[in-house]
């Protein structure tokens, strides 16, 4: 290790060098006092000397150069012309530095008289300058701090708006669909440390989940070290630019414990599609950014401008299919007993990695097919406007969740049903005129709400009106008239509402131009069912009606419940499953000529034996020895009798080919993780065997 003496020797050598250089520079400066580069040079020398002399206990020299530095800094930052007599003071000061240095080195206690005289002069001049222009002090120290920051390759401590804007622009260029850009402004109260917060916790949490994060601290209230208090927060503002996959709600959650006035999150949209001009601009931005050595540029490849390619959907489907196979193969490996029995850590870890990657690929490929429903909703605005004009009803349209993503193939088939439902809601749902609404205490303007959201693995698109609601009695009467239902049939509310979607049903007294031509809602129902979705209607008389279209996330994958009957495995789409249970003997009844029923909460539900539907060769057992899965179908609920529930799984749907497509009870097949094949049930086509034979008779 270096000894104290050696260190002292190094200091003396360096200090002497600085002083010699000062001596030369100050004379050169005297000749050309406009050379601010030279003034900077002198300033730097004095600055180093100050730090070093204090470190070595040469406090008298330190004290002197400290004030000398302040003076130099004043001229350096204001670029004020140096008056002749003050220039003289500079030269004098350098002389004093030389003399004091001699004294310090030789441990002479007595300082030359010039020391105090010159120091007084410097202080006086400095005071005069500062009093003349107090606002300078601020900008001065700002510049010092910014320069200091530059010396350490940091961003300026007092960022101007430009720096922030520039950072946002650079990040916008890096934005992709999976990455959101936020500008977050933290203005924590002074007492935040007491509450256990500091800014870095937030930066850390955000940073862990961000692709890129840049923060700008502003400490306007701290001009000098005396202003700084360690117990109080002195950072008045931190601007954060974060590029992260987190959605708004997730970002907001991070700041949940702060008061509303302490943070502000602003999502920043992706820039408009690149045009030549902006491209150029971005390019120069990148250039300047890389010159500044900011880390953003170094850790990403933003040189590639955001671009899109058009791909044939057929190719995407093929890719999707292959990924489906990959998922199956991966499941096969993960579930294979022999492989699982190998107790080798490397193999196990590799399988784990494989399954992670497979899942990632599956998600990404899936996302290729997903588009926001925004455009479809935009189209609906027009529909609402036109219908509003035609019917003369004033409508306030609310759109929610337009960023919800949905399978592209579904979006195309969704427009027509949606238009129909919206027209229907305005035409039939809303009261005929504003006066009618006002008389029952509603606003004259009708409200129509269009929403899209995710709900337990499905996508729900709902159309709500605040109109008159569905008149159950009228619907039921009409249904009897049309012969859709029999008089005396006991129907639940939702079953009655479902009647309006039956073919040939129309309650509109006058057939209007828009809807009510009898080819109404049943068409909507059929087209939604083609997408493997369903429609639910909720309504309250006098308050309004909601039509909810419930769709699976994608057409290619189905969320299924795996059930076992004999040696066969079947898949029931989870969407239609109401509940599963083991019945008590007492609630199972046999009705002559109609078959078996189970009574569930006063509702009589027919039991369907899969073994009979598919002619399985298994011993006949009683329902109370088995499990019943209650499912919702077109024609009411049925209870499917099975041996065992195997679990819930996402399966890739495979079509079965022409010859099997005639079997109505099956909608497709799927390959399970263990390589077995399971058939997907089409519950709407399932009927109790005795019932069908009854009908045939």
């Amino acid at each position, binding site marked *: 290790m270096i000894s104290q003496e050696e260190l002292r020797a190094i200091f003396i050598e360096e200090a002497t060098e600085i002083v010699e250089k000062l001596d030369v520079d100050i004379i050169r400066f005297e000749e050309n006092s406009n050379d601010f580069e030279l003034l900077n040079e002198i300033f730097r020398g004095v600055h180093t000397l100050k730090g070093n002399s204090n470190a070595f206990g040469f406090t008298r020299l330190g004290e002197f150069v400290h004030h000398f530095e302040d003076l130099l800094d004043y001229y350096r930052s204001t670029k004020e012309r140096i008056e002749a007599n003050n220039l003289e003071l500079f030269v004098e000061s350098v002389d004093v530095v030389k003399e004091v240095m001699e004294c310090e080195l030789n441990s002479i206690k007595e300082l030359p008289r010039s020391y105090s005289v010159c120091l007084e002069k410097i202080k006086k001049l400095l005071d005069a300058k500062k009093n003349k222009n107090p606002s300078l002090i601020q900008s001065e120290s700002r510049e010092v701090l910014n320069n200091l920051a530059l010396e350490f390759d940091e961003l300026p401590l007092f960022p101007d708006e430009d720096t922030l804007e520039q950072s946002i622009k650079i990040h916008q260029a890096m934005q992709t669909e999976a990455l959101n850009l936020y500008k977050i402004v933290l203005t924590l109260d002074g007492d935040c440390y007491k509450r256990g917060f500091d800014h870095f916790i937030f930066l850390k949490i955000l940073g862990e989940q961000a692709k890129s994060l840049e923060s700008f601290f502003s400490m306007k209230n701290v001009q000098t070290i005396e202003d700084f208090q360690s117990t109080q927060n002195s950072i008045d503002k931190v601007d954060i630019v974060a590029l992260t996959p987190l959605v708004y709600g997730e970002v907001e959650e991070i700041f949940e414990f702060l*008061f509303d006035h302490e943070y502000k999150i602003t999502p920043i949209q992706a820039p408009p599609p690149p045009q030549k001009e902006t491209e150029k601009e971005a390019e120069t931005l990148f250039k300047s950014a890389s010159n500044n050595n900011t880390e953003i540029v170094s850790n990403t490849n933003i040189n590639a401008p955001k671009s899109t390619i058009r791909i044939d959907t057929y190719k995407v489907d093929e890719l999707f299919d292959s990924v489906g196979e990959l998922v199956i193969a991966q499941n096969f490996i993960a579930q294979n007993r022999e492989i699982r029995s190998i107790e080798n850590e490397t193999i196990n870890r590799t399988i784990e990695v494989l399954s992670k990657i497979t899942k990632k690929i599956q998600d990404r490929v899936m996302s290729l097919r997903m588009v926001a429903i925004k455009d479809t909703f935009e189209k609906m605005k027009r529909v609402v406007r036109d219908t509003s004009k035609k019917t003369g009803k004033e409508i306030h349209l609310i759109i929610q969740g337009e960023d919800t993503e949905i399978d592209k193939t579904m979006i195309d088939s969704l427009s027509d049903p949606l238009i129909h439902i919206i027209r229907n809601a305005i035409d039939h749902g809303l009261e005929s005129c504003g006066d009618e609404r006002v008389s029952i205490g509603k606003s004259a303007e009708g409200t129509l709400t269009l929403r899209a959201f995710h709900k337990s693995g499905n996508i729900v698109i709902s159309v709500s009106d605040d109109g008159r609601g569905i008149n159950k009695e009228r619907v039921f009467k009409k249904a009897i008239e049309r012969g859709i239902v029999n008089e005396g049939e006991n129907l639940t509310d939702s079953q009655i509402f479902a009647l309006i979607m039956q073919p040939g049903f129309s309650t509109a007294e006058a057939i209007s131009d828009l809807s009510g031509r009898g080819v109404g809602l049943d068409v909507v129902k059929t087209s939604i069912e083609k997408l493997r979705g369903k429609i639910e209607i909720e309504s309250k008389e006098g308050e309004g009606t909601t039509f909810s279209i419930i769709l699976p996330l994608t057409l290619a994958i189905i969320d299924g419940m795996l059930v076992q009957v004999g040696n066969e495995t079947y898949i029931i789409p989870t969407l239609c499953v109401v509940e599963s249970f083991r019945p008590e003997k007492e609630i199972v009844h046999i009705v002559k000529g109609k078959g078996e029923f189970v009574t569930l909460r006063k509702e009589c539900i027919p039991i369907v034996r899969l073994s009979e539907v598919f002619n399985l060769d298994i011993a006949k057992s009683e329902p109370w020895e088995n499990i019943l899965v209650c499912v919702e179908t077109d024609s009411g609920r049925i209870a499917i009798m099975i041996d065992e529930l195997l679990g819930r799984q996402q399966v890739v749907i495979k079509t079965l080919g022409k010859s099997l497509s005639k079997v109505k009870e099956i909608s497709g097949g799927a390959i399970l993780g263990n390589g077995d094949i399971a058939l997907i049930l089409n519950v709407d086509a399932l009927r109790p065997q005795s019932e069908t034979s009854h009908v045939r008779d």
Partner: protein
Amino acid sequence: MAKTVIIVDDSKAVVAMAELALGELIQSGVIEFKSYLNPLKLLDGLQSGSENFDLLISDINMPEMNGLDLAKAIKTSDKHKTKPIIILTTESSNEIKMAGKEIGVTGWMVKPFSDEKLVKSIKMVLGV
């Protein structure tokens, strides 16, 4: 080093639920979990130096001592004055929040809370 999370609640059920919810964090050694049914005991421990914490989660209404008073008492010590304290409550009005801010309360969690929310809040406050 595992961070010490202490929960004070006069209800054993709440404490048990919290411990269950934090199971993963505890097992992975991210946090060390301690619980007190009586806030006075905790205060004794903290004052004598036999107890310490990185995050305190306290109920507000407890027979021996109110959660805010507990926070106030803890914050008088130099050692603990900047440590995070989350208060559990059934309602969180603005007045009570402002009073909490005065004392130096980190945040509020409205009961009943979900497991997920508890884990998230702890991770957030401790920055783990």
